[in-house]
């Protein structure tokens, strides 16, 4: 059922290419006119003028074109097998690492929109959802081959309407309120700390007993995956990405995290973050927001498309995310809207889809800007990438070309269902439009509908 078509790149192929005479948007060092970028074995070796291609390295003439770092989406559900393990309010033990579908043709569509890295996230049904996985869009690679090597671990939290609807209203278990949300988090952190103490005591006593074979052996304390992960969160090994909307719940989580000493976290969506920009900045908390979504649910009714600009002006590291397979294809224009709404500079807007999401995912030492030594994840654009008329012409990941507008066949599936004839309904995809809200909860909506049918 698996066949490779058009894709010659293999997993973790590191490529080499010399891109010449472009306007290079470095993100960290301004825009460089008429400049070359040399990528060797997947790494940006040199940025400068009149560079010479090493033997055997392909050159791309990008005269009149722009080169920008590949777009990074800090919030995506593009190729999750499942999104929500929505049966328990806390599921820290599950991980999207085990829910990757590497064959999703949407990966190619995203490459064609200039994206090279996504943060594949668990959904927002649970207060503490599953762990996320940062992926490079190496279309044609295996699930293992898609992973961003040595990216920081991440986890999804969610506040507000989604967890209270799914668990409180849907299953009749806490939380049904924002009060309950706080206590679910605190309660699980405390349980996790207790577990850690008991487990370590057990392991120590066991080692002693096994060595000396004297006294009474300890009653075993089983390894607990959920609490292990929560301890990793408390210890800062896992970056928290928290689905949130309202200013009050954002403040609540910062209070809780301060109590447990958790420092590295990003508020996702955060439509009301602009109301508490000062507090966010003071805590070093980051945000990842939509450019202009609002009013699709009550908790985003009092929000504004100027959110990103206010946050940026107040010193909050902010990114623009998609949470939506269509927006993922056009994130450059979502960033352009930040320039419109609040006069953020073009370079700051570009940061919001490159360097800032990289910071939020703990990969900014390797991607997010065009600098020597960073990964060769770059995109050649026909014009300025924030213009609606510009197209991604070539998308490189690790110096390997995964998209080329000149060689862009219609049918780019790599997984073919032999049981579906040409006109078969199963070839029809679920359409995602620009406005389909809350991809986070897409599968839980089905859950809730069925619950209503079942219990009405």
């Amino acid at each position, binding site marked *: 059922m698996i066949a490779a078509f058009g894709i010659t790149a293999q997993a973790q192929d590191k490529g080499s290419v010399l891109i010449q005479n472009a306007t290079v948007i470095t993100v960290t060092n301004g825009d460089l006119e008429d400049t070359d970028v040399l990528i060797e074995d997947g790494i940006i070796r040199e940025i400068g003028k009149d560079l010479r291609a090493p033997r055997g390295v392909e050159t791309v003439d990008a005269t009149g074109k722009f080169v920008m770092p590949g777009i990074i989406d800090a919030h995506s559900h593009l190729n999750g097998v499942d999104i929500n393990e929505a049966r328990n309010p806390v599921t820290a033990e599950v991980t999207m690492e085990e829910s990757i579908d590497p064959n999703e043709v*949407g990966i190619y569509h995203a490459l064609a929109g200039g994206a090279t890295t996504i943060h594949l996230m668990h959904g927002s049904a649970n207060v503490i959802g599953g762990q996320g996985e940062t992926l490079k869009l190496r279309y044609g690679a295996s699930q293992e081959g898609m992973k961003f090597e040595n990216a920081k671990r991440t986890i999804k939290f969610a506040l507000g309407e989604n967890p209270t609807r799914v668990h409180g209203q849907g299953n009749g278990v806490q939380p049904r309120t924002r009060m309950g949300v706080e206590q679910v988090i605190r309660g699980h952190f405390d349980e996790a700390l207790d577990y850690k103490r008991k487990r370590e005591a057990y392991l120590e006593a066991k080692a002693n007993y096994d060595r000396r074979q004297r006294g009474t052996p300890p009653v075993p304390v089983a390894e607990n995956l959920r609490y292990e992960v929560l301890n990793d969160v408390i210890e800062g090994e896992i970056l928290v990405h928290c689905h949130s909307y309202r200013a009050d719940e954002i403040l609540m989580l910062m209070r809780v995290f301060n109590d447990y000493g958790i420092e590295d976290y990003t508020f996702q969506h955060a439509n009301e973050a602009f109301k508490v920009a000062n507090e966010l900045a003071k805590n070093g908390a980051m945000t990842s927001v939509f450019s*202009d979504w609002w009013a699709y*649910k009550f908790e985003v009714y009092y929000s504004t498309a*100027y959110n990103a600009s206010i946050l940026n002006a107040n010193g909050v590291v902010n990114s623009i995310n998609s949470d939506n397979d269509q927006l993922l294809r056009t994130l450059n224009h979502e960033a352009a*809207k930040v320039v419109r709404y609040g006069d953020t500079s073009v370079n700051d807007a570009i940061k919001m889809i490159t360097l800032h999401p990289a910071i939020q995912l703990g990969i900014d030492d390797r991607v997010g800007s065009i600098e020597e030594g960073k990964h060769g994840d770059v995109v050649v654009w026909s014009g300025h990438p*924030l213009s609606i008329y*510009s197209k991604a012409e070539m998308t490189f990941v690790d110096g390997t070309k995964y998209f080329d507008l000149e060689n862009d066949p219609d049918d780019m599936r790599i997984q073919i269902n032999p049981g579906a004839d040409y006109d078969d309904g199963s070839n029809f995809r679920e359409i995602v439009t*620009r406005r389909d809200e809350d991809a986070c909860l897409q599968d839980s909506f089905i859950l809730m509908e069925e619950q209503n049918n079942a219990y009405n």
Partner: protein
Amino acid sequence: MKKLNIFAVIVALLFSLSATAEAQITEKPEYGKFAITGATIHTVTNGTIEGGVILIDGNDIAFVGQNIKITDEYTRIDATGKHVYPGIIDGWTGLGLVEISAVPVTVDVAEIGQFNPHMYAFTAFNPHSASVPVTRVSGVTTVLSRPSSGSISGKAAVMDLWGYSPDSMAVKKSGALIMNLPSKGGGSWDTRSEEEIQEQYENQIKEINDFLNKARFYDQMMKAYEADPSGKTKPDFDPRMEAMREVLTGDVPVVISVNDEEEILDAIEWTKGQQDMSFVFAGVREGWRVAEEIAEAGIPVLTTTLYTPSRDYDSYQRPYENPGLMAAAGVKVAIVSNDTENSRNTPFEAGYAAAYGMGTDEAIKAITINPAEIFGVADKLGSIEEGKQANLFISDGDPLEPMTNIEQVFIKGFKIPMQSRHIQLYDEFLNRDAVNR
């Protein structure tokens, strides 16, 4: 279910309290005589005028051109280096009918029942929706606000986005009749057999045909009575049938939502049997596959670009190219938002069409004059022409570009305050603690 209702009530209470507590517009509009000078005027219907002048007198555009003496009674607006475009028309939105889509009590698009031609979006259009100012300051001055349920959902209204009542905002109360033909389903989730699907489809089509035939009979009966009531018993009034009469003359177009190739072809086939009505298709995602057929049927379309491809094996570009491919085949294309609170993104939907084959000029037409013509309001809207209503905006560039700023909007001659909730929140929170430390 009970729980949900209580929740909904609480939300409704909260909502109504806050909505009244928060004023949206604190400035007053200006109205009277304006002269916009120095701008590049994109008339849409008569080319582009560099460094031109637009005179607005009351509701209307009084002059468009270059050589005119501007008298002192005109308030001058220097737009040198700027651009003027006709107001954008979003021909497919729930604006005014939907406040918060996830809160059912604020959603007024779907009345109970299969056949509701007598439901008027006009009636439920909330002039004070927070989305209205948000939309109009982005250059969208007019929308077709539409209901959506059953086989006949009701009448969509063409509404200008300035005013304090539906009456003052309505360009056309009966902008279109909204219809849905039965779906043949057939997705991977559909467990019905092909025969069942076909049978159900035919039954549902028959129901619709029966309804329309009844409406035709009613119309003829009423006409006969109205022509000469003497000696005749007045037939009973039927609001549904009555509402169909303006549709059966072809005056009010019928919009049918269709997307897949097969759906489109089935709909074309069906419309051939309904010669007394005029039709428009909405959605039309696979229009490019059957563009010739749509053109031949003479059916205009309302479509979008920013969505993922409809089939696994489609090129990712197809949604972007679709409007251009249909236009090239001779279909009249309007590009719409298919959105509510973000109706303001209509020009960016068009921007993608422009970039992928349609070209800027045609894409601008697709959000101005084309929808005006489709809904029969081109005598007032859709271009910058003398005698037309003064719906226009001044921008610092191409409105299809997301980075372009819309600097001033005029609707019905009103120089409207460039205020909205989004802008107010920006003003309040950009430097929140400037004073209160």
